[in-house]
């Protein structure tokens, strides 16, 4: 080891070798498709930048890799670049293990889609670079809709519209439930944003630490009330397990539900499964509460964070790679492969020029929904360090509601538990 160091030092001194900077990149994509794509971008980048060596590796779930990063940082072995999910943002910020990317060097963020960059801009600083982003949309079974006498060209866009369609579906006796989705707190966050209502106090946790949820607001009542009506009309089904994305998709693609809500990132998978199952799938905007203006969606997914404890060269290398991976062409490519949004305006332009939206018209709805989002604290998304827990608490609340609890009781209990979780987290800073 010492010998190697001496040799390297000598080489460096004589100026015959340039020291290579290693950039560890930890991500949470375990599948071959996405891991392979990331590795290919790293190879290209390494070839073009001989001074930097980016080493991507899969580090388990978002939770696992966040924890691994923090523990590594304590021993000064932090990876330079880490992918962290959006609910972990406040936690990552509070950990003090990362540096805002806008302070590493000047980056022009004007090309990034506004609602996406807004989520990760905290206290005026861009903390992390958006990478894989998605939002929820309505999926519908066009064939079953026609059988029930509904027009697939005009899918419901509001709770009321959906409930009305459900009555027709019920009357048509299709042997399928009207609507189904995975119970996930993420959707509640979206529906709050759509109504322009922040989920948390203190400007959705962006002006100061959130100390309470707004689950007693009229907006929250609209959302829970919608599920209550669905339950009363027997118009809703799910697997019974929380956050069961795959199970809910399977119910929809097996034609046991007519309407389904899930992430845009599933468009490709659902379209393929529908083809196998023998029906035509349609995609529409996320139905929202009646009588409210459509404010748009909050971005979901994950972003790329740069560790604080790495050298300047590593931090710059990490940012350069992150920017390369999310450049116009690569993002368009990433979108076609996975269904995640390309996070840049120029990528959307590129896709439009390539005729992508005429080839895959399903995607257009998702884009419009995102680009038409009205910037506000509500649509920027709620920030709180206990977000993983509060999201789960909201899911518990919806589940109890579907099991028969009243809207008021469910919201009261959910709010009490979520607020307690917020306070417990905030107590860490006293």
């Amino acid at each position, binding site marked *: 080891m010492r010998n190697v160091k001496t040799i390297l030092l000598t080489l460096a001194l004589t100026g015959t070798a340039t020291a290579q900077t290693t950039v560890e990149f930890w991500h949470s994509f375990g599948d071959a498709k996405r891991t392979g794509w990331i590795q290919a971008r790293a190879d290209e980048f390494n070839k073009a930048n001989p001074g930097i060596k980016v080493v991507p590796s899969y580090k388990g779930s978002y939770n696992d890799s966040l924890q691994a990063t*923090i523990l590594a940082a304590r021993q000064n072995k932090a990876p330079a670049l880490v992918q962290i999910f959006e609910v972990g943002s406040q936690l990552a910020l509070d950990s*003090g293990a990362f540096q805002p990317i806008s302070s590493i060097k000047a980056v022009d963020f004007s090309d990034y889609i506004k609602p996406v960059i807004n989520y990760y801009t905290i206290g005026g600083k861009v903390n992390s670079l958006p990478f894989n982003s998605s939002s929820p949309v309505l999926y519908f079974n066009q064939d079953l809709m026609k059988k029930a006498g509904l027009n697939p060209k005009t899918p419901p866009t509001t709770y009321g519209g959906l409930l009305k369609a459900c009555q027709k579906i019920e009357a048509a006796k299709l042997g399928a439930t009207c609507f189904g989705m995975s119970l996930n707190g993420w959707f509640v966050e979206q529906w709050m944003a759509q109504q322009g209502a922040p989920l948390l106090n203190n400007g959705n946790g962006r002006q100061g630490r959130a100390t309470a949820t707004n689950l007693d607001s009229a907006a929250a009542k609209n959302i829970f009330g919608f599920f209550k009506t669905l339950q009363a009309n027997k118009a809703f089904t799910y*697997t019974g397990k929380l956050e069961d994305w795959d*199970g809910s998709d399977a119910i929809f693609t*097996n034609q046991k539900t007519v309407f389904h809500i899930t992430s845009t990132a599933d468009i490709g998978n659902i379209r393929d499964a529908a083809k196998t199952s023998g029906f035509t799938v349609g995609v529409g905007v996320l139905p929202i509460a009646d009588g409210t203006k459509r404010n748009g969606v909050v971005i979901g997914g994950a972003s790329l964070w740069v560790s604080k404890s790495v050298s300047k060269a590593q931090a710059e290398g990490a940012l350069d790679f992150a920017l390369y991976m999310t450049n116009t062409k690569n993002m368009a490519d990433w979108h076609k492969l996975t269904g995640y949004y390309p996070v840049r305006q120029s990528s959307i332009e590129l896709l439009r020029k390539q005729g992508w939206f005429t080839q895959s018209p399903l995607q257009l709805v998702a884009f419009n929904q995102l680009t038409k989002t009205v910037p506000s604290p509500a649509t920027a998304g709620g920030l709180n360090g206990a977000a993983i827990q509060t999201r789960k608490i909201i899911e518990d609340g919806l589940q109890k509601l*579907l099991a028969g609890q009243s809207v008021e009781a469910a919201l009261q209990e959910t709010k009490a538990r979520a607020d307690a979780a917020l306070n417990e987290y905030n107590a*860490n800073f006293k």
Partner: protein
Amino acid sequence: MLKPARVQNTTEAEERAVFRGTALPWVFLLPSLLILAVFVYLPALQTLRLAAYRANVILGTERFVGLANFTELLLSPAYRQVALQTFVFTLLTVTLGLLSALGLAWLASRPIRGANTYRLLLIYPYALSPAIAGTLWLFLFNPEIGLVNKILGALFDVRPRWLDTPSLAFGLVTLAAIWKGLAYNIVFYLASIQNLPGDVMEAAEIDGASGAQVFWRVAFPLLTPITFFLVFTNVISALFDSFALTDILTKGGPYTGNAGATTFLVYQLYQDGFVNFKTGAAAAQAALMLALVAFITWMQFRVGERRVHYGS
């Protein structure tokens, strides 16, 4: 304890072999002790220390709170519910699991045609990992498209909601855990049954004992050592190995009362420690579970000495 025992004057050569000094045995023990220290003792001590702090591993915050973590846990209705659920779950999986394993092993050990095939079929679930077993059950019990509800729907026109009805979800996880443990228990029972002394059984039959009498009066007492061993391995696996099954099948849900109906101690610990990063609270739970395991081990020795019939 670790000092080599003074040797009495026995005739057997190997019993007289003794280390000259005290240093050498320690040298031989050192590798094991080092591994134990690094991977067991130090983490255990660290856990006990953390249990006295309000800590968050991500934030790196630690504030000394004394026994507050413990009092909070023991007073929390959620934790009490989880502990009670764990107790009922363990009781059910161990008793029902061992009874059905014993019954099946007894039947499969009868001299019948195709006995080997039966045995193979009974043992194979042991080869499945809990994660795969959980996924299989999840597919089977999907309320809309699962095989179980398809059959129940066609025959009786009922489609139970297995995963979000608290009692059904609890029953389902219990059943899955019993099924998953069955193969392991059957292997041990089969081996023990095959080793039962044939002459004793035969003598009982000649004396006119019925099949049931042979089983309960002769075979069952002779099987107490293995039953005893299985009770404790099953208790430990119900306490700790239920994790993967619950995580995949129900995620600890559905929430009822003050906690998820299928959230057991180890799952609660995982949630608090590795999902919500309440490191101190999780450490306190780990300490409580450590005490529980210590108690079970103590019971094992105590009961083992008094009640189990090991033969002459």
